[in-house]
């Protein structure tokens, strides 16, 4: 297929913005500036970028504990993201959620999720709503290889299949669930093979190839929008970084990681763009610099923002807060 330079560069830009954000987050965490713990999306950027470009602002996604990339690709405000990572009042969740609980309902992000596979039932519900409202929106539900062994996966796929709901199940198979390799815990060679159990299409793709992701998700989104029901897509990638920042990673050798660095999606796509003559050295520099500047500004914004007042902890549980015995 032929793509415009503009389109291809936009995918590249998204990946670069995610990478830049994540490298900064890692750095800040190691400097002790961020509370809690964070899970980096480095090396998996092609999935969020390639998938999300198929979505409209009012389409939905459910994300995971490794959600920064999804948020950015869906159009989130990285200032508010960064402020949330700092636990500041100006963050997406006013400091109540942190990295694992960022949501932005205005752009259809129905939440990152600290519970593995926690987003799948939520996606099924959004799918039901869309169908009842006779809209043509879709939901993309991201989840990991580890998540594919939770009961929620099974229930959600069966559910969306029988009601023919517009939900794309996008499995990010990064080869690890925390310390455990996918082969040790998952009984199939390709997670996409599980689609057969739900009578829906299942596709395994190279998740480090942003164009493959784009095209596969595009077809699934078109199917879903036109009433064809759900699709299971397995995007195979590799988690280059530790499970979380600070992970001792005793479960693998450094050499294995180095080998996978060679295959990371941004470098690969860059090479391709260059071959196509669609990314000049100057353009590339600009893109990275812009991304860097944007992230620096987000950090500045976050650092200058105040912490929430302690009593703010007692708001936001309910809309109607009257009469509660806090």
């Amino acid at each position, binding site marked *: 297929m032929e793509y415009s330079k503009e389109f291809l560069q936009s995918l590249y830009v998204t990946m670069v913005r995610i990478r830049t954000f994540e490298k900064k987050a890692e750095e800040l965490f190691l400097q002790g500036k961020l509370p809690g713990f964070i899970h980096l999306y480095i090396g998996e950027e092609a999935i969020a970028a390639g998938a999300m470009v198929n979505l409209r602002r009012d389409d*939905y996604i*459910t994300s995971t504990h490794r959600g920064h990339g999804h948020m950015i690709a869906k159009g989130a405000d990285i200032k508010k993201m960064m402020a949330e990572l700092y636990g500041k009042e100006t*963050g*997406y*969740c*006013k*400091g*109540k*959620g942190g990295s694992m*609980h*960022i*949501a*932005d*309902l205005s752009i259809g992000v*129905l*939440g990152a*999720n*600290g*519970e593995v596979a*926690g987003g*799948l*039932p*939520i*996606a*099924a*519900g*959004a*799918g*039901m*709503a*869309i169908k*009842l*409202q006779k809209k043509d929106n879709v*939901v993309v539900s991201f989840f990991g290889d580890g998540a594919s062994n939770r*009961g*929620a996966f099974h*229930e*959600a796929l*069966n*559910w969306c299949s*029988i009601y023919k709901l517009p939900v794309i199940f996008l499995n990010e198979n990064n080869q690890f669930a925390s310390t455990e390799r996918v082969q040790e815990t998952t009984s199939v060679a390709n997670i996409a093979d599980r689609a057969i159990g739900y009578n829906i299409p299942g596709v395994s793709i190279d998740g480090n190839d942003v164009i493959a992701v784009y095209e596969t998700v595009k077809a699934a989104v078109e199917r879903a929008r036109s009433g064809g029901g759900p699709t299971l897509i397995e995007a195979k990638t590799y988690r280059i970084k530790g499970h979380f920042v600070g992970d001792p990673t005793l479960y693998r050798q450094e050499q294995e990681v180095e080998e996978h660095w060679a295959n990371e999606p941004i470098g690969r796509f860059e090479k391709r763009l260059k071959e196509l003559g669609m990314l000049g050295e100057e353009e590339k520099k600009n893109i990275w610099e812009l991304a860097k500047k944007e992230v620096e500004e987000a950090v500045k914004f976050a650092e200058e923002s105040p912490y929430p007042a302690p009593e703010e902890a007692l*708001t*936001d*549980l*309910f*809309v*109607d807060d*009257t*009469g*509660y*015995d806090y």
Partner: protein
Amino acid sequence: MREITFSEALGEAMFEEMSRDPTIFTYGEDIAKQGGIFGAYKSLLGKFPDRVIDTPISEEVIFGSALGAALAGMRPVAEFHFADFLFTGMTAIANQIMKFRYMTGGQAKLHLVLRGPDGISKSAAAQHSESIETIFMHIPGIKVIVPSTPYDMKGLFKTALRSDDPVICFEHKMLYGLKGPVPEEEYYIPFGQADIKKEGKDVTVVATSRMVHESLKAAKNLSKEGIDVEVIDLRTLVPWDREKVLESVKKTHRLVVAHETWKRGGWSAEVASVVQEEVFDYLDAPILRVGAYNVHIPFSPPLQDFVVPDSKSVEDAVRKVVGGAV
């Protein structure tokens, strides 16, 4: 005033609100074709073919999808079939529904309702007899309604169907057939307002659901002994009406709290603790609690009768609290 059953009252509330609000839909196991296993939805049979939906036995998605559907603009009413099976999809409630609004800094209105039967029936045994409302009072994030009469059922449920916060409604199996007066005119009962089901001056009995009726029966018997019992029906546990309870205890100086669930760790302990904390000086005797023994609900009728409290248990506690004046 005309009389209808508890189950009809629920059906009317659903019918009226569904007629008014096209975003309300309801789903669960076995609700569409037979109107629910306890007949709660008989009045909806064939009325809203698209909005009364039978589902697979997939509790995590039944509950979790309610969150997704609410986020996407609908007003789901999900049935839990038996309170025991709340545990089967518990994570979708306790980790997702009950936390979502708070974690995301108040971004969402979670207009969703979970409802279904709880409590004993004729020997349904340990996995079909539980009352676990206390758990939803302990974990923050959902409003809890526990109606005891057709009037309260309808009025509270209509309020639930207009709430912008999640609500869980526990309907006692042995109450579905109970008849009682319900006006033809529309009415709503606000949450957090206890109802004095019988005034009295000697002892306050606080109860909910089936135990309200057992307490009224006890009060009747006790009146023959010259003991004038005030029976307060909390009607909602989150929020619960401290003021009315405290006022009553200030008047009677004696309190018994009665529920069907296990005494140990049951919500009666919360009520008792708050009351002794707030009006310690008014108490003329220790507060007594009535609840099930700390075992599961056994099958055999004499065993079930022994484990679960009834009017006699309330009578005994009242006699003790009156006799045991200090």
